[in-house]
C-alpha cells in the first residue's frame, strides 16, 4: 500500500518534493501568561526524512509531548516554523490543519482518547468515516487494523470492557487504519507489560518497513528505543542529542 496519497484540494500544494518530510525551525512553545508563563520548548530544530523510525527520549517535562502535539498539528508553535513537505503548517488555517491530520497523520495519544461506549471497531473506523470511505471498505480496513494489533476478536467491545493495554492497541489501530504518511506515538507502550510492548514495537517496525510509514515515537524505555533507527534526546525544551541507533551520542 502506498503511504503518500495526493494532497486534498483545500491544501496548498507542497514544495519541490526534495525537501525533508518534516522540519522544525527554532520552534518555541510557551504555556500560560505573565508569572504563570512557562517555556516548554526553547528553540527546537529537527529534520525528519521519509521512512525514518525515530525514538524521542528525555526526562519527564522536557517537552516531548509538546513537540509531538505540534508535529501532529494538534497545537500551534508560539514561534518558529513547522514545515511539512514544504508546507508551512503554522500558516495554515484550522481547516487545512484538520485536513493534514485527516490525510497524512496518525496519532497515538499517551492517554488513549477513545470514544466511550463505542465499540473498538467503530473507534478504529472513525478516521475513515471522515475520509468519506464507504461502509464496507471501512469495516474491512478497520478489521484489518484490529487484526494487526491482535484485537480482531474484541471488535465488539467498548473501551470500558478492555484492559489498558488493549485500549492502547485500539488507539494504535485507529492511528494506522488510514496508512498515514507519519505515525506519531506518544509513549505507546507506557501502559503495557514488557511482552505486549515488544509486540507493539514489532508492529511499528513492520509498518515502517513494509508500508513505508514514517514513525515518531516517544518513549522513556531504552529497550523500546532500541527498535528505532534514530534516537533524539530532549532536555529542557531543546534537542540535546540526535544520533543513529547504535552510535554513541
Amino acid at each position: 500500500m502506498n503511504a503518500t496519497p495526493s494532497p486534498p484540494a483545500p491544501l496548498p500544494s507542497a514544495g519541490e518534493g526534495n525537501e525533508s518530510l518534516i522540519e522544525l525551525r527554532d520552534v518555541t512553545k510557551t504555556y500560560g501568561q505573565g508569572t504563570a508563563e512557562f517555556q516548554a520548548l526553547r528553540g527546537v530544530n529537527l529534520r525528519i526524512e521519509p521512512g525514518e523510525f525515530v525514538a524521542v527520549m528525555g526526562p519527564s517535562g522536557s517537552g516531548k509531548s509538546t513537540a509531538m502535539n505540534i508535529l501532529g498539528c494538534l497545537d500551534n508553535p508560539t514561534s518558529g516554523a513547522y514545515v511539512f513537505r514544504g508546507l508551512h503548517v503554522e500558516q495554515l488555517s484550522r481547516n487545512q490543519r484538520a485536513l493534514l491530520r485527516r490525510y497524512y497523520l496518525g496519532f497515538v495519544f499517551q492517554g488513549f482518547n477513545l470514544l466511550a461506549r463505542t465499540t473498538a471497531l467503530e473507534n478504529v473506523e472513525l478516521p475513515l468515516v471522515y475520509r468519506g470511505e464507504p461502509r464496507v471498505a471501512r469495516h474491512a480496513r478497520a478489521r484489518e487494523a484490529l487484526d494487526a494489533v491482535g484485537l480482531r476478536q474484541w471488535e465488539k467491545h467498548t473501551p470500558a470492557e478492555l484492559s489498558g493495554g488493549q485500549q492502547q492497541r485500539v488507539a494504535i489501530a485507529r492511528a494506522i487504519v488510514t496508512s498515514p504518511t507519519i505515525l506519531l506515538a506518544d509513549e505507546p507502550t507506557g501502559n503495557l507489560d514488557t511482552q505486549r510492548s515488544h509486540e507493539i514495537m514489532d508492529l511499528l517496525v513492520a509498518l515502517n518497513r513494509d508500508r513505508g510509514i514514517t514513525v515518531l515515537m516517544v518513549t522513556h524505555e531504552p529497550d523500546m528505543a532500541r527498535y528505532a533507527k534514530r534516537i533524539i534526546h530532549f532536555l529542557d525544551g531543546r534537542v540535546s542529542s540526535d544520533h543513529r541507533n547504535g552510535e554513541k551520542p
Partner: protein
Amino acid sequence: MFLSSLLLALRAIRRNLMRSFLTILGIVIGVSAVITMVTLGNGATRVVSDQIASLGSNLVMVRPGQRLGPGRDSAGAPRFKVSDAEVIQTQISGLNAVAPSTNRSVTVVYGANNWSTAITGSTDAYFTVGNWRLAGGRVFTESEQRAGKAVCVIGETVRRELFGQLPALGGELRVSNFSCEVIGVLASKGQSAMGMDQDDTIVMPLRTLQRRLTGNQDVNTILVSVVDSSRTDQVMADLRSLLRERRKIAASEDDNFSILDTRQIAETLTGTTKVMTMLLGAVAAVSLLVGGIGIMNIMLVSVTERTREIGIRLAIGALEREVLLQFLVEAVALSALGGIIGIILATLASIGLAGVMQVPFLFDPAINLLAFLFSAAIGVIFGYFPARRAARLDPIEALRHE
C-alpha cells in the same frame, strides 16, 4: 456531508442512550403537559360558551333584588308581576320577546315513574327568548295561557325519565295535586354553563303555575330578548329607568332589581373557565420549564465528555463544521423526537381526559407548535452551544478538558 452527519448523530444517540432518553423525556413531559392542559382548558371554555349561546342571544334578565347567583340579596325587594312584563313589552322598543317566568321544584309522576325537576311557568315567549326548539308537539296557545290550562312542554331528560320508550305527547303527568297534559317535547340543549342539565325542565303557562303551585301572582324573572344586540345597552338603560319609575325608587336610592345581559353572564362564566385554563397552563408551563432544566442539566453534565469527544474527532481530522453539524443534527433529532412523542401523548391524554371530563377535544395547533418549539429550542441550545464552544478549541485543548 449532511447524510454522514446524520449517521454520526444517530450513532451518537444510540451510544448515549441514557442521555438521549433523559433529554427526550424532559421534552416529552414538558410538551405533553402544556398541550394537555391547554387543550382541556379550551374544551371547557368551549362548553361554557356553547351553553351561553344556547341560553339565547341578546338575552336580558331582570330580577328583583341585587346581585346574581347564590346568596342573592332579594329579601324585601318587591317581586315583579305579569303587568311589569306587559308594560316592558309595550313601552320599550326594539324588543323581540318578553317572558315573565317563575320556577318551582316539584316531583312529577307518570305511571310508576317519578322524577324531581324544576317547573318554569311562563308565556310562549319563553321559548323564543330561551332559544328553545321543539323535538315534537307544540307550545301552549294564547287561550291556554289565559285560561291557565293544565298543559306542559317537557325537556328531554324529563321525557326520558318518565316515559322511556313510551310516547310522551298526550301523556298525563301528576304534578303535585293536579294532572297536566304533555303537549310538547323540547329539543335537547345539554348541560348548562354551571353544569346543570338544561333538559331537566318542564314549562307550563305562568298562570297555571301561579294558580296551582305557588298560589300568588309573583314573577321571579323577566326574560327579555333584544332584536338588535348592538342596542342591548340602550334597552338595558330604558329598562332601568322604566322599572325605577314603576317601583317608585327615589333618585338617591339604589335599584332594588338587577338587569343582566347574556354578555355579562357570558363574561362572568367564561371568565372563570379562562382563569382555570390559564392556571392549568401556568402549572403546565412550570413542567415545561422543569423539563427544560432537566435537558439543560443533562447537556451541561455531559459537556466534559462531549468536549473530549469533540477533541478526539478534531484530532483525527474532522473539520469544525462537520463536528458542529453532527451535534446540531443530534440535538434537533432528539428534540424533534421528544416533541413528536410529547404531542402524540398529549393528544391521547387529551382525548381520554376530555371524555372523562365531558368536554370536547379541541386540537389547538398554536399551543402544539409553541410547546414543541420551546422544548426544541432548549434541546438545541443546550445541546448545540456547548458543542460549538468545544469545536472552536484547538484539538489539544479540547482533549485536555477536565
